[in-house]
């Protein structure tokens, strides 16, 4: 089984989306001081035996492109893909249809759903 990263799997589709997102943030509508101010606090805790961490993504890093989030969450050091909704709620790739209030809640919900399984980069058989 080969495995590729989510970023590579997103490929062309995400590249276009990312380019647009960058432009949006650079433009007048993206003078996003309020957005930055509203970013949730970082967290770092052990929940049900697993290390969950969240905080601003490193500048221009992994989170700059495909979802415009700017906030990274990990479970045992592995990325949990998260996204912020327009109303400020959050979803993750593990809970993609059920928004919760904060990234910390999202990480905890993911730990409960994973039942000990590791997160993996998107794996293709």
């Amino acid at each position, binding site marked *: 089984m080969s495995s590729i990263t989510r970023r590579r799997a997103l490929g062309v589709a995400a590249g276009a989306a990312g380019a647009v997102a960058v432009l949006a943030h650079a433009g007048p509508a993206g003078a996003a001081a309020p957005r930055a101010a509203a970013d949730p606090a970082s967290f770092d805790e052990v929940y049900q035996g697993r290390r969950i961490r969240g905080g601003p993504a490193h500048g221009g890093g992994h989170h700059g492109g495909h979802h415009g989030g700017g906030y990274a969450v990990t479970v045992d050091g592995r990325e949990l893909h998260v996204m912020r909704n327009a109303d400020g709620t959050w979803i993750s790739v593990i809970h993609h249809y059920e928004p919760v209030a904060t990234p910390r809640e999202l990480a905890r919900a993911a730990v409960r759903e994973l*039942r000990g399984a590791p997160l993996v980069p998107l794996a293709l058989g």
Partner: protein
Amino acid sequence: MTVRKNQATLTADEKRRFVDALLELKRSGRYDTFVTTHNAFIMGDTDDGDRVGHRSPSFLPWHRRFLLEFEAALKSVDPTVTLPYWDWTADRTSRSSLWAPDLLGGTGRARDGQVTDGPFARVGNRWPITVRVDGRDFLRRDLGAGGRQLPTRAEVDSVLAMETYDTAPWNSASDGFRNHLEGWRGVNLHNRVHVWVGGQMATGVSPNDPVFWLHHAFVDKLWADWQARHPGSAYLPAAGTRNVVDLHDTMRPWNDVTPADMLDHTPHYTFDTAA
């Protein structure tokens, strides 16, 4: 002519042919390409950026085209097969025949959520979960976990009554029919059904569960029902909207189809009951 039928009315032979076609697509590797495409869009579609498959007006035409492609793949295996739909307002418990071993199999076991009966159970190894976001390679479900309820007919009717297709800002914060059907706002129809099923259906790789297609075939039928109820209501927005697929813009990943091309389902299929 393709007729999409309520899953509850399928004959034993129709169920067997549908299941066999799914298993053949899986075996050949074609099935997983659909899972990969869906996950790429669900992770790439954002409220403040480019959005095509979800949280946007094109949620409905995008999934209509996605299902048409999938149905064509099924037909290439067995030309008699069409996509059935699951009316979750009527067949709303885990005891529905939908979840019997001759169709989709039932809910997951308590210990690890693993589906243990039906054609897609790990036993038999005909349904490995290869496009995945965690280490588990078996189909999981948790039907109605925590006492969750599927939407009622009255809730569906309240959404079908909305006259306006979609509204600015054309995302998960919008008012209007599309976003209420999708479920980011209001009584929550489509999203809630994903959550009710649980397992992979609640994740970005939701097409790993074959019920994905039956769920979306019913969401698609609700769009047709809405059109019949509001013949004067059009797809919106019409033109010039940044990050959003307007009526005559092409949709990724196909780039040869617009929402306008998808408004009328009848060139492609009809339903077993009048829309």
